[in-house]
């Protein structure tokens, strides 16, 4: 029997509840709009819950390395940031990527590059998926609703600790601040944490990220890639929205996808045969589902609040298919359902 809880929360508050449900115990962070409420809310929760603790660090880079340290000790830790802080986090995330640490980060996208705006964008897709100096062996969930800020954050911890890739929940400034009544379903027990530095003097754990020659480093990378490829099917997720009988397809992620759903519902009343394919994981992408959806149509519209970070990911997957792909990129600005309809009907 599933018990549910209804709560009036913002996206940022939902993320905190999701982290607690996912088994997180320590948060490290630095204030940055629009993610600051996550740190504040967590700090407040830790007053009543002795299993939670936190440290506001000297900057985001330090926060990320504190996370790495806590993970090594076998404790679920995470950080939350945005924009310039997301950039500073690439240093510790790269270490986590190399050493296969279960790093969890909640990234609330804001206008960029540089300080930009504190409000909204979808311009941190590259950063989350392929930032740092590695090859993007990171899991990225794109939350499209306050509800998903809860469920995907919880899931992120289990994904990270099971598969050992840095795992991100990509939200944005609108989601962070939107307050809604959401249901908090009772979720499966999270994957437990375990010591990564095993504290066994008879067989010490030596973890390094620096190698002296190409071949030995290459073998380690190849092993990580093998694991990544093996795990893709289990991790990749997507949503198909009203795809039956379509001749045009919208592809969008995050809150923009929700606006697209509204637009689709309206267009369907005007007999336009159009649906939405939404990735829940931007990395790895649910390629099989994407290709199946794309094969139904000749024309695809990709909407994103960035120039073409998301479009490039999709086009990479769809290479080889005969398609007319139209990119609707609007960096750092959102789309209302009406705008979406206007762009499509043009």
């Amino acid at each position, binding site marked *: 029997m599933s018990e549910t809880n209804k709560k009036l929360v913002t996206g940022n508050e939902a993320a905190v509840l999701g982290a607690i449900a996912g088994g997180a115990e320590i948060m490290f962070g630095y204030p940055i709009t629009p993610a600051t409420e996550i740190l504040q809310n967590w700090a407040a929760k830790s007053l009543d819950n002795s299993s939670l603790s936190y440290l506001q660090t000297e900057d985001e880079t330090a926060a990320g*390395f504190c996370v790495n340290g806590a993970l090594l000790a076998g404790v679920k830790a995470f950080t939350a940031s945005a924009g310039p802080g997301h950039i500073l986090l690439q240093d510790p995330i790269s270490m986590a990527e190399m050493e296969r640490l279960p790093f969890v980060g909640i990234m609330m996208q804001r206008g960029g590059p540089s300080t930009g705006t504190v409000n909204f964008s979808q311009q941190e897709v590259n950063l989350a998926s392929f930032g740092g100096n590695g090859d993007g062996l990171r899991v990225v969930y794109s939350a499209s609703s306050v509800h998903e800020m809860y469920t995907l954050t919880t899931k992120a911890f289990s994904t990270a600790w099971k598969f050992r890739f840095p795992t991100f929940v990509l939200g944005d400034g609108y989601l962070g601040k939107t307050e809604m009544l959401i249901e908090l379903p009772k979720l499966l027990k999270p994957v437990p944490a375990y010591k990564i530095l095993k504290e066994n003097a008879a067989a010490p754990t030596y973890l390094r990220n620096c190698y002296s020659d190409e071949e030995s480093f290459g073998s380690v990378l190849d092993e990580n890639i093998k694991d990544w490829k093996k795990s893709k099917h289990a991790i990749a997720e997507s949503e198909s929205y009203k795809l039956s009988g379509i001749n045009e397809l919208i592809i969008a992620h995050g809150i923009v996808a929700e606006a697209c759903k509204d637009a689709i519902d309206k267009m369907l009343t005007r007999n336009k045969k159009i649906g939405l394919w939404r990735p829940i994981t931007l990395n790895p992408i649910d390629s099989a589902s994407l290709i199946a959806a794309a094969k139904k149509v000749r024309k695809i519209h990709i909407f994103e609040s960035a120039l073409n970070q998301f479009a490039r990911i999709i086009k990479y997957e769809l290479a080889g298919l005969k398609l007319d792909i139209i990119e609707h990129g609007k960096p750092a600005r959102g789309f209302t359902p009406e705008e979406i309809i206007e762009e499509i009907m043009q």
Partner: protein
Amino acid sequence: MNEIMPKCWNCNTKPHLFCPGCGHGITLKHLGYAIDEMEIANNVTLGIDIGCSLLSWNFFNFDTIQTHHGRTNPTMVGYKMANPKRVAIAYMGDGGGYAIGLQSLLHAAFRNDPITVILVNNENYAMTGGQVAPTTETGIVTATTPKGKPVSFGPGFHGPELVRCIANDKAFVARVSVSQPEIIKLTLKKAIENQIKNKLFSFVEVLSICPTNWKTNAKESFNRLLDMEKYYHVEEIKPNE
């Protein structure tokens, strides 16, 4: 302790990869003896920086984590917060501690995080070929100061004194030298005790030699070290009265 090498050294990874005559070898030996005498080898986790310190990644019989340059302190702060029972040691050089990592070193001291930081100062960035470091004294020729360190780059950096200004009065701050290895051992024991018994921050700088980049033989290396000790004082650095 009269062992040819500390018991907590992993003898399978010896000879180690530090250069002939490197002060890291002397420092790590007396860190090892200190750990042996305190009988805590089963409970130590060592964090190391990038730079020559990274060569100690498989050096000891205890868990070792190589971090990024200048990031050993926050990693060990997070580790210790998650597992307060372990002895957390952060080991780095003058670049990782006083340049790229200075902010985190100072904040760990400021917060009195209960970790023990050991910083080996050989007045240059050795692993990358001997470039100028904050601790390089004025006038010294390095790979990036071919005419000697100019005044505009700042004089030699007094790290422990700076840390002392910002650290809690009960934190333990000291400078030692590889010219006196027994003092290294005694001082590291005091520093680690401050973490275990008092749950406070401790910081020890070790003046060290770098024959490879200094281009000195054994005698010349220790002579230069004597000169360094005139500028960087070997002593426990206590809070102002």
